[in-house]
């Protein structure tokens, strides 16, 4: 009897073709046997208190990394801290949320009034930056799980030519710019999606990302921490701030004796050499180049902005909803036949087509404005790079560049003065 009813309903539905909703087609049973209905189980999400534990651990790890890199000058301590961070923030916490991606949550919260950022996201974004402002990139030294997983595979670092390194070093700026644009316009979080190591932390992920991560790690044996140096968008912010940090890591615990033993100690090419005695290029030539660069700069920025603004349409297609909207519009206009997976299922939702179209058009418009800013920003980055390379800086000693130094402590033991210090420490019995 029930069977006939179903067939009837099937026929009815196929006749009117109305999409269906939860409705009482069948009466709820009344059990004579006193059967008790089971309950839906709802295993809870991670308790909020664990979020505070994360923040506390982050603070402790940052403080420890600062202490180990500036005061204790212990490479071994930093390495152990890195392994702890890799295990906790990486494998245990499955890499989410991390400071590297948190910048996107900040941008989304700034521009989308419907999104409120959890306390953890804000703390993970802000705390490493504050530490960078005072103690250098302690976060990179032993707190970031992405850095830590690469740090353990730095086995046979080779030196890549500095001009190439500097050029590759501009990629993070572009990456940061695009990530901020996408996050601010609500298109998506690309830093998270293209995080090469998070798939390892979760023991699962898309095949392509696992391969990408594996290749980066394999390359990382020779090219030390390639993600940190040539991709990491958060590193840009950390670099900006650590440039002005109150305390910076030094290779030598004392005055530099110009022994040049630390010259190759840094696998990240972050040790600056003293300016040689050789005569600089003619002053007039330098000034002329500076003047030309300054004149060309606005043109570069405008050109970048002009192209960036026009990139809004291709960029908007990263958002599957925009792609769906564009396709639906083609279908409605009759310029495309048939339906794609997305348009077919979108039509099942019963959502107004124009809602989707309006939302997508709005997103494209936002991307246009954002694209202008992004393009201009990239133009500015390249010009400033060029400008920075045109100015001859004078430094007398060997020492880490406070912007690019990852505070890993590898150079400490290359300095003869450090050995002296350690000897004194051991002999003198704990002078501070």
């Amino acid at each position: 009897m029930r069977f006939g009813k179903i067939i009837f309903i099937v026929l009815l539905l196929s006749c009117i073709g109305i999409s269906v909703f939860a409705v009482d087609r069948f009466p709820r049973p009344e059990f004579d046997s006193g059967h008790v209905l089971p309950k839906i189980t709802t295993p809870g999400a991670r308790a909020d208190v664990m979020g505070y534990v994360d923040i506390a651990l982050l603070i402790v790890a940052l403080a420890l990394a600062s202490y180990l890199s500036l005061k204790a000058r212990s490479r071994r301590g930093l390495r152990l801290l890195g392994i702890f961070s890799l295990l906790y923030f990486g494998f245990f916490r499955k890499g989410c949320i991390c400071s590297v991606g948190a910048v996107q949550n900040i941008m989304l919260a700034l521009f989308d009034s419907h999104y409120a950022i959890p306390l953890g996201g804000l703390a993970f974004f802000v705390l490493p930056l504050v530490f960078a402002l005072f103690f250098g990139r302690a976060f990179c030294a032993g707190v970031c799980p992405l850095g830590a997983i690469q740090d353990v595979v730095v086995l046979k670092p080779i030196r890549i030519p500095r001009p190439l390194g500097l050029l590759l070093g501009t990629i993070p700026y572009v990456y940061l710019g695009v990530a901020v644009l996408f996050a601010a316009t609500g298109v998506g979080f690309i830093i998270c999606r293209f995080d090469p190591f998070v798939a390892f932390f979760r023991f699962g992920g898309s095949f392509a990302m696992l391969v990408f991560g594996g290749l980066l790690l394999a390359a990382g044996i020779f090219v030390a921490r390639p993600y940190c140096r040539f991709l990491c968008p958060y590193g840009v912010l950390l670099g900006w701030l650590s440039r002005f940090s109150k305390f910076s890591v030094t290779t030598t615990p004392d005055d530099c004796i110009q022994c040049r033993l630390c010259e190759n100690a840094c696998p990240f090419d972050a040790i600056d050499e003293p300016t040689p005695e050789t005569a600089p290029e003619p002053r007039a030539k330098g000034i002329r180049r500076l003047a030309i660069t300054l004149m060309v700069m606005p043109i570069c920025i405008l050109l970048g902005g002009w192209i960036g603004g026009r990139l809004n349409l291709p960029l908007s297609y990263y958002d599957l909803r925009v792609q769906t909207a564009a396709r639906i519009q083609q279908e409605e206009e009759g310029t495309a036949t048939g339906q794609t997976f997305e348009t077919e299922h979108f039509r099942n939702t019963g959502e107004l087509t124009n809602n989707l179209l309006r939302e997508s058009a709005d997103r494209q418009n936002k991307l246009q404005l954002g694209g202008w800013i992004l393009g201009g920003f990239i133009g500015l980055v390249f010009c400033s790079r060029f400008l920075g390379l045109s100015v001859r800086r004078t430094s007398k000693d060997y020492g880490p560049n406070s912007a690019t130094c990852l505070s890993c402590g590898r150079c400490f033991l290359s300095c003869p003065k450090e050995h002296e210090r350690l000897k004194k420490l051991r002999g003198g019995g704990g002078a501070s």
Partner: protein
Amino acid sequence: MSEANTKKPSRRDFNRGLMRGAGLLAIVGVTAGMGRRMRKDNTVWQLDPDKCVQCGRCATECVLNPSAVKCVHAYDICGYCDLCAGYHQPSAKVTDTAAENQLCPTAAIKRTYIEDPYYEYAIEESLCVGCGKCVKGCGAFGNGSLFLQVRHDRCVNCNDCSIARACPANAFRRVSAEQPYILKGQSGEARA
């Protein structure tokens, strides 16, 4: 170690201090600006069963394998039918548990006889892959008591949920970690 740093402050040091102040100000500014936009509770991802169109992507797009999305059953709106459109193949002629009559590709639904003519259907979560085939059947021909949910004992709560990105119905959203489910049935009615 600080001997080198205790020399008289040069102009360079002064500039660095100034920039540091500016950096601090920027960080404080961002933090303060976030103050209004901040929430104390954490957020997790959940899918709204009312928006879900059972496209099947929950099973394939999750970073986990098998997916963190599973079918759950709101028993209180289930009709306990003998022929269940969520359990049986549309073409099934016999209402039994044989493989050729079952809809679920992983046999994750357990059918139990309660009393004439009622049968109870329960989801074996370790087998469920979240494909939503049963949800579609139950929604189209039954009471709609089967529906998909992100199970938070499995979900790793990615910052950028890859199913949310691919969902054609825009059914995923961030919800409070304190109320991490959007349920149907009595427990769901209580929320509204």
